């Protein structure tokens, strides 16, 4: 169960500046359970998009967007709707947003911040894909997570060690920032690469997951039972 929190609407509105038509995608997996991705949230976002004057080309809620193979099959059936949209707004965890970003050649906007892996994972769980940083940056990085795809977790472009598309740390590992650069170029949003991403709020993750988000099974059984 991966826990996400909705991003403030003003932040999402900012992402959508310059887009006229938006396809809205939600997740019925963990995010339905936690209330940040499922049909209800998609309905709410759809209303806000309408109000704000965006043309919602379609909405769809898919179970476990994190499972790229499954999501790919479902998205293929609505590819024409996606094709005619300027971008996609995806209400899901960081893993699902990244899966969608790999599947479509459009800018993919994240609607949530992933804060915790909770307890039971989604069908495609991976700390290797999302570090549940609580301030999702996928909007600025072409749907590729800089915290997991860049070994150093850099937030503002490649380090000097990137060489022929590879990371300085391992010869076979792609440089995450090269991937981000190529992706932003492909979707025509290279302007985003020069957006300054400020230092991360580390207390939102790592050792400092806020108490209210620690509603995992572990937390319930092992930490709270002692009280």
């Amino acid at each position, binding site marked *: 169960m991966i826990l996400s929190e909705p991003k403030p609407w003003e932040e999402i509105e900012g992402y959508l500046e310059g887009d006229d038509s938006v396809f809205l995608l939600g997740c019925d997996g963990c995010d339905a359970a936690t209330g940040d991705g499922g049909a209800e949230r998609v309905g709410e976002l759809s209303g806000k998009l309408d109000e704000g004057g965006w043309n919602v080309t379609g909405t769809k809620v898919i179970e476990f967007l994190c499972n790229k193979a499954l999501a790919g099959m479902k998205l293929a059936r609505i590819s024409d709707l996606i094709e005619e949209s300027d971008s996609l707004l995806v209400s899901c965890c960081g893993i699902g947003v990244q899966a969608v970003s790999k599947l479509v050649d459009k800018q993919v906007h994240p609607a949530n911040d992933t804060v915790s892996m909770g307890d039971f994972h989604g069908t495609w769980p991976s700390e290797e894909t999302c570090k549940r940083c609580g301030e999702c940056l996928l909007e600025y990085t072409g749907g590729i997570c800089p915290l997991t795809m860049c070994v*150093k977790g850099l937030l*503002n*472009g490649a*380090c000097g060690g*990137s*060489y022929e598309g590879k990371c*300085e*740390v391992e010869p076979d590992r792609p440089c995450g920032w090269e991937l981000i650069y190529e992706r932003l170029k492909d979707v025509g949003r290279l302007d985003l*690469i020069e957006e*300054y991403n400020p230092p991360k709020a580390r207390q939102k993750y790592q050792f400092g997951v806020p108490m209210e988000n620690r509603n995992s099974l572990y937390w319930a059984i092992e930490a709270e039972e002692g009280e």
Partner: protein
Amino acid sequence: MSTLKDKLEAGEFAITCEAGPPKGVDLENELKEAEEIAGLIDAFNVTDLQSSAMRMSSVAMCRLLEERGLETVYQMTCRDRNRLALQSSLLGAWALGMENVLALTGDYTTLGDHPDAMPVFDLDSIQLLETIERLNGGEDLVGNELKGSPQFFPGAAANPGADPLKPQILKSRMKADHGARFFQTQAVYDSDVFAKFMEELRDAGVETPVMVGILPLKSAGMARFMDANIAGVVIPDEVIKELTDASDTVQKSLEICSRVINETADLCEGVHLMPMGWEEYVPDILDGTDL
């Protein structure tokens, strides 16, 4: 008073030279070598655990050089310290007399001699530049007021041989936008590559002074290794051949350095020497140029 800043801002050609702290506490050689060439150099870049190998701290060696009247560029990476320690080190460095700082991301820990160390990277180089700018402005990263603020002259690294070049240009522009007031580059051996970089950088609207990186190749083998393994280092085949055919490799290597300086000096604002143990030959390299 930073000579480096004064010179670069007045449009005068400046020369910096790298000086690596020792692994241990015996600094005799390092200080002697620096003092011997001090008259030729505007400032010494003191490296910060270069290549992630454990060494004496940069700030300590900077101070020892400054005490001898030699100006320094305090190199600082994001690898080993979080934002608290970085800011605190910067304040300390200023109090000890350092004015020039080079903000770097830093090599990854696993490349060095303590591969099991915790890599920090709480900030990246751009955020570190931004941090320096904040401290210069009298407040810390979260906006708390400082009691007395530094006036650092911050610089950054650039890689003219990066392939593709465009992301490098954009990143350099970002560095300039976030406070970098000079660039020191990765080692250059091909002046055409450097000329292209300078052209694109200026076309992108970045007018920040650039100091061309010069690193003597100690052998043809080293040249081949660097060409194949070091990010952004491009060594033309002719240069490798020159070294292979030379009867006196040292002489040839120094000649190549002088030649690259001559070919690039008009395109940029300074030269950054990285002698890597060949400090004694720095005068020969400079003698061989038209500077």
